[in-house]
């Protein structure tokens, strides 16, 4: 029995709640329809009543009313927001935003507004937005006033600042007030104070606000000029920071592409023109892994890159070992022939990939944790670029540790420095050669996984990196991994700093010319190996 009563009660309460909500909407609709009743003073009362509801749903209709876009339909005196399309008017419901009707201009009456009404609307809007309980609405409202710089909003925003509890929104409101003050006819002292407030908000919008004022005579102009130069200085600093960031990003890409080459070219002295294709193979491995995951295990998609990295290393490494055993080992000591043979291999690999996967770009997805960005000051940092920088550095230092700390690394260095002596000491030099080449190729494959996130995965992927990678290795100094690191980041940052002045293409040309001249000066690169072996 008690249960029955409870159920009945609950049902009644629920029904009441629903009808209550409906009633509220109906009330709002009535209030809005009331705008069309009577003259200006009645409309003003109605606006105040709308504001008193505190419901953000009435904001659009009030804004439209201030613009003079609100009409009453003659047939039933319902009020709508109307937009003139051709010769007819499209009526929109002010609460739901749905298009209701399309009528000729004779079927509707415009609700006229005068300046007094406009002020009333603004006050009402301010109360609804600047003092809205929702922080996001308040923030957006303050931002909107900053952008418009409407001097009539000053009183309103003063009231809002008094009530504001959230310090960051309060700061935004003060800036909005300052922007409004600059457009008003208040005293010079007020304006100078306002300029000081705006100065603290560095950014292009405050700059565009202040620049017209520098023309003004007197203290306001002087204050504006000082503020503009201060903001410009700060902006220049952020620009430089942005360039450094872009440069680091490009540098990490170059580092990834060049680091495998630093092993095959730098350590072994083998000119591997097929290096770019190893990068491409890594990228295609990522594509295949993602395809398999998509069709068989979609929940693994976010970790697809972690699966692809070791696989790309193995696939590209295996191709590398095959190339070394099949072709390059016959050509040691003949660098120019090696160059030609590996170029031929690169053509074959490209065409093979084109035959298997088709010539078009393949879609490689980005895991959710790599998309998006965050901001430091005015600097926008995307997660995928950050991930690539981190990845490049991890690969670099792992490789460094591998070469310095493992027995294989020791053997590899021994063979590099003195092949005959290493062989005499019992190191299987052919095996070390093959493994070294596989290592370099495998790292290129891992680079391909990273590059698949920022570049098009097509058979030509490798071609675009091969010249850049060679430049990095040659610039940094052959046979020196630190040189590759420094070279990659130097070239990346230099490229991005030249771009704003010279344009992307000319900047790249300048960097190339610089490297050509640099090689003339230091033919062995930035960090040259010393000793007799290199002069062989």
């Amino acid at each position, binding site marked *: 029995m008690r249960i029955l009563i409870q159920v009945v009660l609950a049902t009644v309460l629920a029904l009441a709640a629903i009808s209550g909500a409906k009633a509220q909407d109906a009330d709002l609709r009535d209030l809005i329809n009331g705008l069309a009743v009577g003259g200006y003073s009645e409309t003003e009362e109605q606006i105040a009543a709308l504001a008193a509801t505190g419901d953000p749903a009435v904001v659009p209709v009030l804004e439209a009313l201030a613009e003079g876009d609100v009409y009453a339909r003659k047939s039933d005196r319902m009020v709508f927001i109307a937009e003139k399309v051709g010769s007819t008017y499209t009526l929109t419901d002010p609460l739901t935003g749905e298009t209701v009707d399309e009528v000729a201009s004779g079927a509707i009456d415009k609700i006229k507004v005068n300046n007094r009404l406009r002020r009333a609307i603004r006050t009402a809007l301010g109360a609804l937005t600047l003092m809205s309980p929702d922080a996001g609405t308040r923030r957006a409202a303050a931002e909107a006033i900053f952008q418009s710089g409407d001097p009539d909003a000053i009183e309103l925003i003063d009231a809002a600042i008094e009530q504001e509890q959230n310090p960051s929104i309060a700061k935004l409101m003060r800036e909005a007030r300052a922007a409004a003050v600059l457009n008003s006819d208040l005293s010079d002292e007020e304006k100078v104070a306002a300029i000081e407030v705006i100065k603290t908000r560095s950014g292009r919008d405050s700059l565009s606000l202040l620049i017209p004022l520098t023309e003004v005579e007197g203290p306001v102009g002087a204050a504006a000029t000082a503020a503009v130069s201060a903001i410009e200085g700060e902006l220049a600093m952020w620009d430089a920071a942005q360039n450094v960031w872009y440069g680091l990003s490009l540098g990490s890409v170059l580092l990834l592409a060049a680091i495998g080459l630093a092993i095959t070219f730098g350590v072994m002295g083998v*000119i591997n023109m097929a290096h770019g294709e190893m990068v491409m193979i890594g990228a295609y491995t990522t594509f295949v892994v993602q395809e398999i995951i998509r069709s068989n295990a979609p929940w693994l998609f976010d970790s697809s890159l972690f699966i692809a990295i070791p696989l790309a290393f193995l696939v590209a490494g295996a191709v590398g070992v095959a190339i070394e055993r099949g072709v390059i080992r016959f050509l040691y000591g*003949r660098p120019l*022939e090696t160059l*030609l043979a590996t*170029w*031929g291999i690169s053509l*074959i690999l490209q065409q093979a990939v084109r035959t298997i996967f088709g010539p078009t770009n393949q879609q490689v997805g980005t895991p959710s944790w790599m998309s998006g960005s965050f901001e430091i000051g005015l600097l926008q940092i995307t997660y995928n670029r950050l991930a690539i920088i981190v990845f490049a550095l991890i690969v670099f230092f792992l490789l460094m540790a591998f070469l310095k700390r493992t027995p294989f690394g020791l053997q590899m260095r021994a063979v590099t420095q003195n092949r005959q002596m290493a062989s005499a000491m019992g190191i299987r030099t052919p095996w070390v050669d093959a493994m070294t080449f596989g290592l370099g190729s495998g790292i290129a494959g891992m680079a391909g996984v990273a590059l698949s996130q920022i570049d098009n995965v097509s058979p030509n992927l490798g071609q675009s990196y091969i010249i850049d990678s060679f430049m990095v290795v040659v610039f940094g100094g052959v046979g020196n991994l630190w040189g590759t690191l420094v070279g990659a980041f130097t070239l990346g940052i230099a490229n991005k700093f030249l771009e704003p002045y010279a344009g992307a293409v000319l900047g790249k040309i300048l960097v190339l*010319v610089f490297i050509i001249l640099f090689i003339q000066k230091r033919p062995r690169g930035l960090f040259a190996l010393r000793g007799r072996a290199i002069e062989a």
Partner: protein
Amino acid sequence: MIGSFIRNGFDRSAFFVILVLVAAAFVVPALALYTTPASPFHIPGYAIPLMGKYLTYGLLALSVGLIWGYCGILSLGHGAFFALGGYAMGMYLMRQIGTRGVYGDPVLPDFMVFLNWDELPVAWYGFQSFPYAMLMVVLAPGILAFVFGWFAFRSRVTGVYLSIITQAMTFALMLGFFRNNLGFGGNNGLTDFKDILGFNIQAPETRAALFAASALALALAYLICKSIISSRFGKVIVAIRDAESRTRFLGYRVENYKLVVWVLSACMAGIAGALYVPQVGIINPGEFEPANSIEVVIWVAVGGRGLLVGPIVGAIVVNFAKSWFTTGALAPYWLFALGGLFVGVTLFLPKGIMGTLGGGWTALKQRRASAAAEAGVSVTDTDGPDGGRLKTEPAE
């Protein structure tokens, strides 16, 4: 003196090569123009520019063969000199269009009108004159090669490093020529030519004349190269290839010798480009692509780089194969074939077609001459100072 210089190089093989080229210069156009299509000797009109194109490629390959085969400089950027010569010729041809362009401007080429330019850029001055344009065909690549070589050889950039910076050079030029505001037609390059020296560029007679000019230019270049390598100067060049440091210690200024051959080779490449452009009717920045320059190197390698005739044969054979491959159903497999050629030639035919044939021929002759005990022929290492594990059958 020049007479003896030329006579030095004019041995039997040179006589044969030059005879073939000069004969081709007269016979092929005659067969194309004065026989009816029914005749078994008739050469169809479309084949003339195609064969002329092969000959210009042969000249380009010869220029690479000269520096690579005889001086040990592997240039991966010779396409740049070729393209510069081509652009100089293209600029002359553009100025000849006159008011027949789409926009009908008497001075400005169409693409400049399209870009709303008001006056001719300084770089284009003088190109309405044929002699000036021909001078530029030689000078533009020559000066670039001189400046580049001056710095590179003086600071002793050699081997692979030199190859890579030549590649960077042509890559930088390609990026530059792709820009519209450099004033050479940007992406589209120069095309839509009307006439050359007053003759319609499409006419069969003009095409025949261009073919003959290409054959004669190739014959002349061959003669010059042959004379150079047979002279005392040529011996020093070969010495530099085989032991650069030793030659320097003997008192030769290695960088000067290298510079002379390098600039000469660049000028030859420029002339090849100038003859190429009117026959194919277009020049665009794609010619600067590093891949093109590397392809030239493979022509030389296929033909045989220790001989002057090798590059010419290699260029013609590879390009004939390319035309044959890329027009048929085999088109998708051309890159496999080209790639296989790179690998196969370096591994199995390090002396190229002509080197291997010539080596076999000399070996046969020697065996006949002296059936005596000397089983092996003295090993000459044409691979330069680097030697290598793979010793091949000796040549000459």
